[in-house]
């Protein structure tokens, strides 16, 4: 009987210790450090508008982003690796956002949350940035005005897929522009009450 096909009920304490450590080493060899990294994202909340309220709701108990290991929102960019830009960014605010991004430690990822951060939204004026991707390498665009917490969680899961796939490529080597868009992968039914055919 190979060592890892054990019956846990018939093993002594020493066996469990050595066998489990073995499994753990094997697991990390297969999955790599990115598995740990993707399940321990540290978001930097850059909340400038109503999207920030949804970001807070995502962090609170009902939606509970702790289930994805991303609950530790730090307000120092030095301690973060995921920038969530939630809300419109005025042009006078843009240097602050860029410096925040520069100060974050590598490897780092960026979520552009909501219509305003991604495109400027309805604020097509002289003073509002028309999409932060003109200035920062954005990994995931989360659509919505503002996005519901489920959509933001889908965005965080998209970041997790990126982390697992790309790993620790420094942000400078990553291109600008769209890589993954946070959309539900399943079909969303439209209820009959609003003209759809979903009961």
């Amino acid at each position, binding site marked *: 009987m190979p060592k890892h096909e054990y019956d846990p009920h018939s093993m002594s304490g020493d066996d469990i210790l050595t066998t489990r450590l073995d499994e753990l080493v094997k697991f990390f060899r297969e999955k790599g450090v990115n598995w740990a990294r993707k399940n321990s994202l540290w978001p930097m909340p850059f909340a400038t508008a109503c999207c920030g309220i949804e970001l807070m709701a995502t962090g609170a108990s009902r939606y509970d982003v702790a289930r994805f290991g991303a609950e530790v929102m730090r307000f120092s960019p030095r301690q973060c690796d995921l920038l969530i830009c939630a809300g419109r960014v005025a*042009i*006078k605010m*843009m*240097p602050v956002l*860029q*410096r925040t991004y*520069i*100060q974050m430690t590598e490897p780092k990822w960026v979520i552009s949350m909501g219509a305003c951060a991604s495109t400027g939204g309805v604020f*097509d*004026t*002289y*003073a*509002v*940035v*028309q999409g932060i991707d003109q*200035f920062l390498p954005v990994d995931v665009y989360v659509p919505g005005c503002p996005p519901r917490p489920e959509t933001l969680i889908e965005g965080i899961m998209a970041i997790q897929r990126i982390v697992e796939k790309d790993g620790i490529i420094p942000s400078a080597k990553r291109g600008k522009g769209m890589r993954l868009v946070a959309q539900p992968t399943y079909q969303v039914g439209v209820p009959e009450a609003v003209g759809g055919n979903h009961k």
Partner: protein
Amino acid sequence: MASHEEIITTLRGRFPDLKFDARPLLAGGATTADQHYIRVEPGRLVEVMTFLRDDDRTKFEQLIDLTCVDYLNFPDAADRYGLVYSLLSITHGHRLWVKCFVNDPSPKVPSVVSIWQGADWMEREVFDMFGVVFEGHPDLRRILTWDGFAANPLRKDYPLRGRGERENYQVVERDSA
């Protein structure tokens, strides 16, 4: 609490050479009987405002708001920029609006910071948004738009999307951060 007629009579008594052109404020198409505004020419503004603050019958201690209206293409408007001063007397509980009209090419009014300290940032905002220069202001800089912004966004002839300011903004690199 003095009525507006009394305030304007007081002013006319002190400044017999000025007309003031007192009119009731318009609110939703209807005139309101108890709210009036007066017009003062820029040259006499500081004199009139100092009197309004200091005289016992008027006693406007507080400048509630200072803003500006661009009357470009406005029907029947004789002047372009209308500065609006909202005054409140805490002692008497009455209010008064003072309007002061200036024109291109170099709109200038005297600053009232020496009368009400709170006018400081409000005058800077009007300077930023309309390009009206306040003579005698201690620190007349832009307050809302960024350094190097070259336009006055709330002028009616300024396009909503700007003139390329948002497209040509600086990118902060690691070296310059």
